[in-house]
C-alpha cells in the first residue's frame, strides 16, 4: 500500500515539500571509477533515480588504463551532497570520490562559440576574444568560431559579450577540476 492520499487534489506547494541538508553552493565531485562497461550508466542511473540533477559531467582517461575520472558538478542548494556521495560510494565500480573545495581547486572548461559576424563586426569580436584570451579557430565570410578556455564564470561572461553579435551555437565541455598544491586530487 502506498500513500492513502485524500480525495482533495494535491497543491503544487505540497509537492515541493521535504528537505535535507543543503549547502547552497555548487559542488564539484571528482570521481575515480574502474574503466568497465556500464559504469557511466550506473552513475547516471543513480542520479536519475535519487532525483539528483547533474549540471555538468565529463569523463576521461587517467594515467592508469584501468581507471577513468568522472568530474561532475551539481547544485548543493538542491541536493544533500552527503547523500549523493554516500550513494555513489555504494557503486562497486566507484573507487574514490572527492568533493573539491572551490578555493583549493583549479577548474577549467572549454567552449566553442559560432558567431554570426561579417567583415564589419569581425574586428570588434576579435578584440573581445583578445580580452578573454580566446582563439579564433575558424573564419568564413559570415561567421567566426571562437575557442575559450577558463572557469565557468569566464565562459559565461564571454557568452554574454558575444550574444549581441548573433550567437549561432555554442558547445561547452563541462568542467574538469584538479586540486591545487602537491597532493593528488
Amino acid at each position, binding site marked *: *500500500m502506498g*500513500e*492513502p*492520499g*485524500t*480525495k482533495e487534489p494535491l497543491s503544487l506547494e505540497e509537492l515541493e515539500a521535504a528537505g535535507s*541538508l543543503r549547502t547552497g553552493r555548487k559542488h564539484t565531485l571528482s570521481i575515480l*571509477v*574502474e574503466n568497465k*562497461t*556500464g559504469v557511466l*550508466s*550506473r552513475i547516471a*542511473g*543513480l542520479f536519475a*533515480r535519487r532525483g539528483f540533477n547533474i549540471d555538468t559531467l565529463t569523463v576521461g582517461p587517467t594515467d592508469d588504463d584501468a581507471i577513468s575520472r568522472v568530474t561532475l558538478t551539481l547544485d548543493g542548494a538542491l541536493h544533500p551532497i*552527503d*547523500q549523493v556521495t*554516500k*550513494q555513489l*560510494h*555504494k*557503486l*562497486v*565500480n*566507484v*573507487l574514490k570520490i572527492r568533493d573539491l573545495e572551490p578555493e583549493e581547486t583549479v577548474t577549467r572548461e572549454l567552449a566553442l562559440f559560432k558567431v554570426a559576424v561579417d567583415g564589419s563586426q569581425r574586428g570588434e569580436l576579435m578584440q573581445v576574444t583578445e580580452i578573454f584570451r580566446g582563439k579564433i579557430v575558424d573564419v568564413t565570410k559570415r561567421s567566426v568560431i571562437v575557442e575559450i578556455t577558463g572557469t565557468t564564470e569566464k565562459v559565461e561572461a564571454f557568452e554574454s559579450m558575444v550574444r549581441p553579435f548573433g550567437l549561432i551555437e555554442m558547445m561547452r565541455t563541462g568542467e574538469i577540476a584538479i586540486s591545487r598544491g602537491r597532493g593528488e586530487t
Partner: protein
Amino acid sequence: MRAVDALMECLKAEGVDVVFGLPGGANLPTYDAFVDAGIKHILVRHEAGGGHAAEGYAKASGKVGVALATSGPGATNLVTPICDAMMDSVPVVFITGQVRTELLGTDGFQEADTIGITMPIVKHSFMIQHPTELPRAIHEAFHLARSGRPGPVLVDIPQDLSRADIDYEPVADIRLPGYQPTVEGNQKQIRQAAKALAAARRPVIYAGGGVVNAGAAAELTEFATCDRFPVTCTLMGLGAFPGTHPQWLGMLGMHGTRSANYAIDEADLICAIGARFDDRVTGKLSEFAPRAKFIHIDVDPAEISKNVPAHIPIVGDAKHVLAKLIVEYRALAPDGERLGDWWKRIEGWRERYPLSYKDSEDAEIKPQYMVQALYEATGGEAIVVSDVGQHQMWAAQHYHFPKPRRWINSGGLGTMGFGLPAAMGAAVACPDQLVCCIAGDGSVQMNAQELATCAQEGIPIKVFIMNNGYLGMVRQWQELFWDRRYSQVETGAYPDFVKLAEAYGATGIRLTDKGSLVEDMKRAIETDGPVVVDVKVTREENTYPMIPSGSAAREMVG
C-alpha cells in the same frame, strides 16, 4: 571444460546445495551442466516464484539463495524478486541466460537488456563479456551478496559464451577495490554512544532487519539487558529480540503497538540498530520522536542521516558494534534505577492499550484470532512466512517470535505473491522445521502455481489463507480515507481453494468454526505434504491500531 561446468564448480565452491529455476533457450547450456553437477535444482513454475523461493531460502538460512532464469521474459519475471531482495537486503545471486553475443542489441528472440532493466535494483551486476570472466564474476557475486549490507547480485551470461571451452582454475581471491564495507565500527563513536545511553532517562532501542542479517540477535538481547532498555523492532526486525521478553514493547510504526510508538514519541534517546527510518516507521517525519537524540548504527553509511539526522553515527556491522557497545556500557556501570519512571510510564501504556480486538459472539473466525490460534497450534515454534496485506500486519502483531529467522515477509517492496514461494524456499532451507505461510486470498493467487512445485518435490509447507474475499488492506483504506467508496477490491468466493489445492496435488482443507480452530489447525499441520487451509474470516475487519499515513505517532487510531 565448458564455462557452464566451471559455473557448477563455482557454485559448489560457494557451498550452494540447492538452486531454484526454470530453463529456456538461452540457458540450455547451464541446464545441461546441471545434469551431472550434483547440485539440487528445484524446477519452479514461474521465475518470480523461483526468485522469491531463493529469498525465502536466504532469509530462513542466512545463506545466499540462488535463482536462475532464461533471457528475455525469464529475466523480466525475476525483476520483482530482485527488487524485493534489494529493498529488504536479502542475499540472492540471480543467474540469467542472455542471447548469443552476435544477437546482442539486435532485438533478437527473447532478448531483453537484463543488466539495464535491473540496474537500479541490484547491489551489483555482471555482464559476462568473455567466458573466462565467469568464475571470478560468480565468486565476486556471492561475496557482494552476502557481505556488508546484503543484497541481490545478478550475473547475465550470453548463451554462446556459456558453451565456450575454458581453462578453469579455482578463484582464490576477490578483487573489488571499490568495495570495502566498514564492519568494525569506530571505537570513539561507540564510547560516545555508551555515554549517551548511560545518561539517557527515556531511552528506546529501535532494531531492524540489519540485526537479523548480522546474526546479532544474541548481542542485541545481551545489550538490552545490560540495563532495562525498552526494545522495539521494525517489521523486518521481528525475532531479533524475543517477543515474549518483559522489555519487549512490540513492533513500532504504522500498525505497531501504542506502547512502542508512544515510547518513541516521548524518548530522549533512540538507539537505531540496522534500521532505516522507513516512512512506515516514522509516519510524519517532522514529528517523529521530536524530543529524541539519535544513535544510528548501520553497516550502510548511506542510511545514516538519510531520513533522520544522527547525533552519533556508527558505521559498522551490528554484531561487532553491539559487542563493543556492551563492553563500553558495562564499564560505565550506570545507575539502573534511573529508568524506573520511564518504565512506569511504559507500563501504563501497556495496561491501557494492549493489542486487542472485539471477538465474535458466534463461530465466526476473527482474523486476529486466526493468528493467535496458529500461534497456539504451533506452540510459537514455526517459521512463519507471510504474504502482503492485512494478514501480514495481524501476523506481525499476534505471533510472538522467539528467535530471528522465524518471521519472513516482504517489508520494503510489499510484494503480494511473495509468501507462498518464500515459504517453499524456507522449507527447503530448513527441512526439519515447520514452515507455515499466512496469506491473503488475494496475494496467495499471485504465485499459487508453486503449489505444483511443492507437490512434486514433497515440500511440506502449510499455507493458511486468511480468506475474507477482499483485497483487504485496500478495502480498509477505501473505507477509512475514501468515504467507503469500494473500488475493485472484492474478490468474492473465487477460486475454491480446496479444489485448487487438490488440483495441484496438495491437500485442501476449509475451516469456518472458531471453536475447533486450534485443533483443526493442528490436524492440518500434522498432515503430510503441502497443505492449503482456507480459513473463512470476518469479511470487513480493519487492522488496528494504525497511524494514518503521513500522521504522527500521537495520532494513532483504533
